[in-house]
């Protein structure tokens, strides 16, 4: 092999651009104080783990993506639950129209309907399970799958993220009530962080004040009514990271958003010692192995220190939330997809060594489309191999004390704290959004990542280096069985079915009852009260997602539709 072939091509910096020395030693951790900076696992400042015994007691929760874009190549959820492939939790994504808070027949939805994941827009979609006489049940698979998950008491994760979470969390509350299940038993979590999405200017469909109100109303109500539900993860770090920012920014933005929500909830009368530890810390599991580990350790320490320094808590009273990762999709390549299995394994191993309590792996088909069942099986295999064969789970935080890991943990925390302080000194996230400063950082980050790739400082195997490894075709199921329409029939059969179901619901339901419930929602909104109970009742009166959103908009003095493309229904007397 030539010397040239054996040179590492990527630059000696972490993924976030932190320069890496050739070797680390005691001098790099001189200031490290065990009690102050690390502590025992499960004890302040939680650097070494949320729980004292970590995996010796309980393995991480495997996040399983729920129904993807129109079922492509996946088995139904009901079957996956019966086969045990889904045993702890399931993530329910949101379709584009749900994220945008409009109905499936809105003119901006069209060909994208159901392409984020199967759309649920009314209690009607659940048919029998919700006691609704819906003969069509276009979304049968999805509706029955999630209804079974609710019945089995699985953890439902609402991965909408941008604050539209409340539409589906309240829909599922309505479903629980119709099924006669006590809400106190409703287990799940919602990402519910609109600020993140105004920061990255992605999924910021509705005005921020509206999404802010909805997100906080949900947090406030759920903290009070749903003991088994985490109504926010305090900051959708994953979406922000995937938009191009680095690790320090990821932590800084996550905690800046967390602080914004916690401060507001305290203003609303909730107590930080009761809610401060409830939001899970959900980060992005990146391909940079040590930086990911350092980031996860730093995240717990930051949580602990913020609780003491900002909220004046007694260190002994501070509780650490679970830490989760969603593994980075931007690390995946279209070129030679089987390499993505390796990338997933490395990301997952880093997450485990960083002490996560839950993680969700990306499918090797990430760049092509959503995951076929093969990808799900491979991912569960990766997790099982890490858990059982590698031995890394047998002792807690095995990398503690490593010169490099401790140096990098400190370096990442320090970088994050500086950015966080800057955000707070500028008046917090909402003030930074107004000036446009924080959005600029994201845009700059996205451009920098692309530049690094094009100039070769960052190597993606098979993309900008080692192209010869891409030629031999390694057969793999890549799916694409998905009906994407044709110029003659641009809507798929399922899209047509869903639109027909919506039209049918509008004709068959009792609009007087629907109108009454929406009117109540309108009144509550106008009076500035918490809208959650009224939203649940509106779902139960067969209102649709777009109608609920439109009514709340009117209650806040906004026009019915953000884009002026849809009019308020004539039978509805609000505004």
């Amino acid at each position: 092999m030539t010397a040239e072939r054996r040179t590492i091509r990527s630059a000696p910096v972490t993924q976030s651009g932190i320069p890496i020395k050739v070797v680390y030693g005691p001098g790099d951790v001189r200031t490290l104080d065990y009690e102050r900076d690390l502590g025992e696992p499960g004890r302040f400042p939680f650097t070494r783990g949320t729980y004292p015994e970590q995996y010796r007691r309980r393995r991480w929760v495997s996040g399983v993506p729920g129904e993807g874009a129109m079922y492509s190549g996946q088995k139904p959820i009901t079957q996956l639950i019966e086969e045990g492939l889904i045993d702890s939790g399931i993530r329910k994504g949101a379709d584009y129209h749900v994220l945008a808070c409009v109905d499936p027949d809105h003119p901006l939805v069209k060909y994208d309907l159901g392409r984020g994941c199967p759309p649920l827009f009314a209690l009607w979609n659940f048919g029998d399970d919700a006691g609704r006489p819906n003969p069509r049940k276009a979304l049968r698979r999805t509706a029955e799958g999630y209804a079974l998950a609710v019945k089995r008491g699985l953890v439902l994760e609402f991965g909408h993220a941008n604050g539209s979470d409340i539409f589906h969390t309240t829909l599922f509350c309505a479903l629980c009530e119709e099924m006669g299940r006590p809400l106190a038993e409703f287990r799940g979590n919602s990402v519910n962080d609109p600020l993140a999405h105004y920061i990255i200017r992605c999924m910021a469909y509705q005005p921020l004040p509206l999404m802010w109100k909805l997100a906080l109303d949900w947090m406030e109500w759920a903290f009070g009514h749903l003991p088994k539900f985490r109504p926010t993860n305090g900051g959708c770090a994953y979406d922000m990271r995937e938009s191009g920012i680095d690790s320090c920014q990821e932590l800084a933005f996550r905690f800046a958003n967390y602080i914004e929500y916690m401060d507001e909830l305290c203003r609303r009368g909730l107590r930080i010692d009761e809610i401060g530890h409830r939001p899970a810390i959900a980060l992005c599991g990146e391909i940079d192995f040590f930086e990911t580990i350092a980031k996860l350790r730093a995240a717990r320490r930051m949580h602990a220190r913020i609780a003491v320094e900002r909220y004046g808590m007694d260190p002994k009273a501070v509780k650490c939330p679970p830490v989760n990762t969603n593994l980075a999709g931007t690390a995946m390549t279209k070129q030679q997809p089987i390499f993505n299995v390796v990338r997933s394994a490395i990301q997952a191993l880093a997450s485990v060594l960083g002490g996560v309590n839950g993680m969700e792996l990306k499918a090797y088909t990430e760049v092509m489309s959503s995951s076929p069942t093969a990808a799900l099986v491979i991912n569960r295999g990766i997790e099982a191999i890490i858990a059982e064969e590698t031995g890394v789970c047998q002792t807690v935080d095995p990398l503690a004390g490593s010169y490099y890991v401790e140096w990098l943990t400190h370096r990442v925390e320090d970088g994050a704290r500086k950015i966080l302080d800057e955000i707070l000194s500028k008046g917090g996230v909402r003030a930074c959004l107004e000036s446009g400063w924080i959005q600029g950082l994201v845009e700059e980050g996205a451009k920098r990542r692309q530049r690094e790739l094009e100039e070769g400082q960052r190597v993606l195997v098979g993309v900008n280096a080692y192209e010869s490894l891409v030629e031999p075709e390694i057969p793999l199921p890549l799916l694409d069985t998905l009906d994407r329409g044709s110029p003659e029939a641009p809507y798929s059969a399922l899209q047509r079915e869903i639109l027909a179901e919506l039209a049918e619901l509008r004709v068959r339901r009792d609009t007087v009852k629907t109108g009454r419930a929406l009117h109540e929602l309108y009144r509550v909104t106008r009076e500035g009260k918490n809208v959650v109970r009224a939203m649940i009742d509106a779902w139960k009166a067969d209102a649709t997602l777009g109608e609920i959103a439109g009514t709340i908009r009117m209650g806040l003095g906004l026009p019915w539709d953000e884009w002026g493309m849809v009019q308020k229904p004539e039978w509805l007397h609000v505004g």
Partner: protein
Amino acid sequence: MRIIRARPVAEHKAVKVLLAKLGLDDHTRPLYVLAQGLRDAGLEVIFLGTHNTPERVVRVALEEDVDAITLSFHTLGHIGWLTEVMGLLRVREAAERVAVFAGGIIPEDDWPTLAAMGVKGFHGPGTPVATIAEGVRREVERKKKGQGEGP
């Protein structure tokens, strides 16, 4: 939404493109990357951002007299949206003049369908933006030659 114009560095008559996403697709990261990269390559970029209808894209493209429309897709709804865009261009008798490029997550199986509709490009993940800019420039020149305006 505001239309943002990014002026190219070079002074000669630059190739002018409109860059947008249709519908509710909000994968904005590639938009920022493309806007910057195309401008760096000397193209003039009319940035329409997200949440556009086909009508708006075609209207602005014709008002601004662009050479090409570059549309980014990450939802798999590209066939329907592009069918509408191409139809509107034909109605406005501009299909010959304005090149239409599509990129993002577009399965290879769909390329022949889109090509038959007259759509160009399909540069997917991992493509340097300079390569995309070069492809656009070449296609625009080819179109101009076809119309007898070439060098």
